[in-house]
């Protein structure tokens, strides 16, 4: 499928800021599962963003506005062609040999260890049970894909997806208390579980088809269309299939309606915006809009 993406961000300072440095991760990946056909970035006050790849393969851009300014905005326009119509379409590895396949990949690519060993506040070592629900145990010989799907369903027994919530927890145990959370919270829970099985799992932020934000039926005054926002899911290294996306929030496998922007060990690795500035501004107003529209099937 082909998508057109528009993302606009604007920040306003109560007192002028200066020596303002920003690093942004907005641009979708360009790899086997999706092609970045074109992209344009614009910054106001006018400056030229510089591109760089980080250690996880994410494309970031950085730029600086040194002079005093009360407002700064940046926007991205991109077109993306996605290809993974059917996430189940791959040559599977015999279940009894799946862990051997993973071990081989770890030897070939030591950087994958990051996606097993990392246990921070967002993906901690999980207790044996949560709210009386035992953690799913890995069964060698059962296809990993199926086990991760089951694990994805299990996450919903721990916490519900709350589409209205836009603030993720800062430590995963808070999700167990709240019993509901963001897409990112549920993705972190799934990742923490899969890592307990010694299987690489990573956190993804990206864009999804606008249809997921539509309310059922025609939008009305009472139920206006939901604003589109960045989405989060997990990817697990599936033998034979490579990185396969699992979205616990929508209970789906990521297909051609998902566009990956950044991956990391957890959400902290892939903040969409990092900035540093000088000035006395106590208040910063921040507005952001996102529009993802399908151009063709």
């Amino acid at each position, binding site marked *: 499928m082909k998508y057109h993406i528009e993302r606009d961000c604007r920040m306003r300072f109560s007192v002028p800021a200066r020596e303002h440095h920003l690093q942004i991760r907005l641009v979708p990946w360009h790899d086997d599962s999706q092609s970045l056909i074109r992209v344009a970035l614009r910054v106001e006050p006018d400056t030229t963003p510089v591109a760089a790849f980080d250690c996880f393969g994410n494309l970031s851009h950085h730029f600086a506005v040194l002079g005093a300014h009360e407002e700064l905005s940046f926007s991205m326009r991109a077109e993306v062609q996605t290809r993974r119509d059917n996430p189940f379409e791959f040559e599977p590895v015999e279940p009894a040999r799946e862990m051997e396949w993973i071990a081989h990949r770890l030897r070939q690519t*030591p950087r994958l*260890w990051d996606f097993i060993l990392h246990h921070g506040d967002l993906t901690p070592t999980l207790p044996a049970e949560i709210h009386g629900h035992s953690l799913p145990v890995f069964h060698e010989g059962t296809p990993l894909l199926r086990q991760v799907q089951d694990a994805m369903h299990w996450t919903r027994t721990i916490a519900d997806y709350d589409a209205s919530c836009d603030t993720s927890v800062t430590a995963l145990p808070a999700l167990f208390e709240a019993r509901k959370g963001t897409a990112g919270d549920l993705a972190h829970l799934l990742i923490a579980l899969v890592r307990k099985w010694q299987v690489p799992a990573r956190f993804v932020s990206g864009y999804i088809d606008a249809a997921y934000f539509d309310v059922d039926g025609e939008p009305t005054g009472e139920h206006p269309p939901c604003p589109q926002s960045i989405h989060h899911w997990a990817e697990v290294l599936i033998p034979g299939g490579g990185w396969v996306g699992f979205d616990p929030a929508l209970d789906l496998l990521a297909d051609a309606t998902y566009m990956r922007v950044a991956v990391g060990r957890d959400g902290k690795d892939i903040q969409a915006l990092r900035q540093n500035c000088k000035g006395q501004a106590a208040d910063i107003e921040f507005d952001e809009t996102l529009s993802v529209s399908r151009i063709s099937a």
Partner: protein
Amino acid sequence: MLKQFQSGGGGQLLDRSEGPVMAFHEFYRDDFRPREHYLPMWEHIQRAGQQSLASKARDAQLALHNEGVTFTLYADEEAGVERVWPFDILPRIITAHEWAQIEAGLKQRIRALNLFLKDIYHGQRILKDGVVPPELIYRGKDLCREIMDIDPPHDIYIHISGVDLIRDEEGRYLVLEDNLRTPSGVSYMIENRIIERRILPEFFSSYRVRRVEHYPDLLLQALRYLSPRGPADAVVVVLTPGVFNSAYFEHSFLAREMGVELAEGRDLVCRNDKVYLKTTLGLRQVDVVYRRVDDEYLDPLVFRADSVLGVAGLINAWRAGNVALVNAPGTGIADDKAVYAYVPEIIRYYLGETPILPSVPTYQMTDHQDRAYVLDNMERMVIKSVAESGGYGMLMGPASTPAQRADFAQRINADPRNYIAQPVIQISRHICYLDGELESRHLDFRPFCIHGSEIDVVPGGLTRVAMTKGSLVVNSSQGGGSKDTWVLAD
């Protein structure tokens, strides 16, 4: 456990199974006569009498005070207060023969560790080949993911190093720690020599002592070599965290001696992936930043966002090849104390050579067998947190209380990767002139290496002395003192 001991390199260590062994005495032979290279000094002391030493010790203290040679202790009751640098007037003397081995061993080690860093931050061949376990690296707190695949100028990561050496009970030099981040102490090495030349000129006339005072010249030459715009007009700055840092004296000393600007983070600004110094005449492009700011504070855009000590955009400028950072960020993974145990293998892997300087046997707490052994024998071990230095995060087993051991056991079990243990080594002793008496104290040695167009090891170093009788803790940050170190010419 056995594997680590066997990989220690450079010969077997003493068998401690037959009970405690005596520390090697650098000054006295076993028959309590001075060693041959100390005889001229000893004869001079006998001729002049100890009274003259008292007067010289007073002169040294006064000179250090007047010249503002200070050090700040963080752990002290008066934390943050600068103290006059503690100095013992009797020098340690290293023969040309001993120095040749030290110099060759350090050069070998720095070459190998530099190749290790290049590999870890690029292709990771050593991990793929199973020489170093990937889990060890990826569990390390100092693996700097933010610099993966960045090429530093001339592929040099470790420009300045201060490797800690000790002498074991047989007098052999062993590497205790690799300090590859922002090692301090070199200014004290030079100040010790300046003072020593002034107060003991007669000693120098009895020996052919190699110079150390040219260190700032060597450093500046190496820094200029790294300049992306060429060495001729390279603009170099020393980046300091500021006056409250314990090594601020050294930062200002080095900047002054090299004739370059001493800057704080707020004095620099990045624009278009270049670094500039703010001057009264406008912005001036900087080519080399000799940074004495830790990695995590170096660039708030990449590392700790709340850092006010660093410079936003510095890593991007480095990535673009427009500035050299000295040392390169990310060197901490190579002096991680758990990685230290693998350095002999690292040397063999990259250089195909046998390690010249052996390492101290090291128990990995991630190894169940090692951990069980260490927890059963804590009173005979030195236990160290892998990512700390300066004597912080350390348990000295023989001097510890049961409560301290229980606390460390709990910490080890909670985070095994964060700790290593080493058997207590009775590090060597030397005479010191303390309170009017000649007393023996334990000491170690930190020589300094500079990696520019080639690797130079300055013939000398900082000898650190445990000021408390019987103590094995020599760290300056723990109240240790110092001696001048004389390396003799052939």
